[in-house]
């Protein structure tokens, strides 16, 4: 039986459930794809979530999936599942704008490796997802820094999705696709996933190929899934991951491959980070503690942990700025950066081009020091946990702030010989070290916007972060809450 229409609730089902329906013939990949395309056309423009639809490709792939499944040629869990890809992944036949005016007519004559990997898994690409211009590579100051305009949060359209994978977050949250691909240089999957109330994963550095993907910072860019659940992320990562000789930083085959069937650590040892997001509203930390109580009740051990102190947030920001100044050198030198939407992005490249090589080497020495310290933390824990973000979603339009008083110039202290600044948030630090992280919903705040919890694991131990999130989701229903209609199911 192939129903002519697909009800809204179906559009919010996880990968395994949709796959089961394909295989018992109660749902058709073509019908599901068409339903998502229709919903994208209806709701996508309201949210500014979509860069472009790929309907011809989508229907061709869906028909192929339907025929293959009917013939018993099963490509696995993603076979026939519709998804969207952030518009920094090259897709032949469609524009790849990088979310930025200077590249609005850009086309590639090949597909990014992850797109080809998902093709091989039978997934169906239905859209390119809107994004912050250049994924924030030259800096940005807010939601309007996008070729497609500010992306609205399906939970409350006065609020932003966060960035830079803004469209990917809105698409999954609003049921415009089953999953989406995002990129994360420093928080660009974790933040929009958290603030859109979905599950998102930043894989270990080098695990997923970036061939055919716009570069911000070679040593920090990662591609990852954003989906309904950690289990979905696990299935998607298994299809995305793998060694790719076309990506210079790709891990060797044995380290790059990922299996969704990897055994979870037992008992799971969770470190609750106590020195992050000190200024976050208490309800964010309380939500994390409630979620960890669920894990503890299922046999996990939970104890306090602290990420290393030091100027690591500064280091991650500087590494991005310096590498981006090189990656976008042509854009900067040509002056075409003036075409960017964001007033910061228009000129920040000039400033970022002035860093010294000696400072970059200092950053890389600091980075290795941090990586060693952070890795030692995982001698005691399988994962460390923290709020997904330090706040819920922010308003898209806010009144201007009053003028600030002049600042006192910083007073460098040449005698300082130790790390002296506290690390306040985990994103930059864990990104700097290439660590995997999974963020999943942990409830709603008083303002009815999503709160998340993130699990960070040792480099290469992506399965541990996913296991912690899956344990939580197996015994809670935070991830089964959806935005109010029309962006959630009726």
């Amino acid at each position, binding site marked *: 039986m192939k129903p002519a229409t697909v009800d809204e609730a179906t559009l919010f089902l996880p990968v395994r459930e949709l796959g089961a329906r394909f295989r018992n013939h109660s749902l058709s990949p073509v019908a599901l794809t068409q339903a998502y395309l229709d919903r994208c056309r209806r709701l996508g423009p309201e949210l500014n979530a979509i860069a472009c639809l790929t309907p011809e490709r989508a229907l061709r792939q869906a028909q192929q999936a339907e025929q293959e499944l009917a013939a018993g040629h099963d490509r696995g869990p993603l076979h026939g599942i519709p998804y969207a890809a952030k518009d920094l992944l090259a897709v032949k036949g469609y524009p790849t704008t990088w979310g930025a005016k200077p590249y609005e007519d850009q086309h590639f004559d090949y597909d990014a490796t992850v797109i080809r990997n998902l093709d091989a898994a039978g997934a169906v690409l239905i859209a390119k997802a809107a994004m912050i211009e250049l994924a924030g590579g030259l*800096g940005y100051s807010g939601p309007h820094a996008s070729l497609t305009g500010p992306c609205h949060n399906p939970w409350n359209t006065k609020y932003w999705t966060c960035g830079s994978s803004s469209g990917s977050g809105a698409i999954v949250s609003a049921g415009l696709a089953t999953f989406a691909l995002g990129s994360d240089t420093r928080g660009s999957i974790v933040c929009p996933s958290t603030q859109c109330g979905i599950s998102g994963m930043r894989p270990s550095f080098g695990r997923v190929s970036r061939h055919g993907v716009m570069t911000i910072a070679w040593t920090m860019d990662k591609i990852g899934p954003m989906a309904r659940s950690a289990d979905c992320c696990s299935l998607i990562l298994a299809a995305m991951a793998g060694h790719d000789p076309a990506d210079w930083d790709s891990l060797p085959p044995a380290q790059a491959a990922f299996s969704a069937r990897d055994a979870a650590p037992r008992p799971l040892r969770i470190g609750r980070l106590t020195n992050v997001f000190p200024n976050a509203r208490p309800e964010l930390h309380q939500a994390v503690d409630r979620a960890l109580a669920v894990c503890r009740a299922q046999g996990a051990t939970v104890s306090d942990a602290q990420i290393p102190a030091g100027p690591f947030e500064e280091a991650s920001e*500087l590494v991005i700025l310096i590498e981006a100044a090189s990656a976008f050198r042509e854009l900067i030198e040509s002056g075409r950066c003036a075409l960017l939407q964001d007033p910061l992005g228009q000129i920040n490249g000039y400033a970022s081009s002035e860093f010294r090589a000696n400072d970059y080497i200092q950053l890389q020495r600091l980075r290795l020091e941090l990586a060693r310290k952070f890795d030692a933390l995982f001698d005691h824990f399988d994962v460390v946990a923290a709020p997904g973000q330090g706040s819920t979603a922010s308003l898209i339009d806010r009144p*201007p702030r009053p003028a600030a008083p002049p600042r006192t110039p910083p007073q460098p202290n040449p005698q300082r010989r130790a790390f002296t600044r506290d690390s306040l948030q985990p994103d930059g630090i864990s990104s700097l070290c290439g660590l995997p992280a999974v963020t999943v919903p942990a409830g709603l705040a008083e303002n009815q916007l999503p709160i998340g919890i993130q699990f960070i694991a040792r480099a290469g131990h992506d399965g541990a972060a996913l296991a912690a999130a899956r344990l939580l989701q197996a015994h809670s229903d935070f991830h089964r809450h959806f935005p109010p209609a029309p962006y959630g199911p009726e």
Partner: protein
Amino acid sequence: METSLSRRAFARAGAAALAAAAALPTAAAQAMPAPPAVTSETEATVSRILARYGSRLTAEQRQRLPRIVQGHVDMLQAVRAVAFDNTAPPATVLQLVEGRRA
């Protein structure tokens, strides 16, 4: 990075306080704080940028530039203050090409 408009501060503040400047660029420009006190390093860097790219910049961008550079210098000073032994290596290594296909 400009103090009021940085990715780092953006994330730290949950983006809440920072979205306004881009959302309302004209209003934000009107509300722009007075130029901050800057270090000699900032002054020198800004001078180099203006010498090279100054003809491309508007008056508002020229006014904004010292804050951006001072933000960079603030971050650099925190990083430079960390001392290492002579042998402490950077997280950059030469990967040998033999056997690898591009």
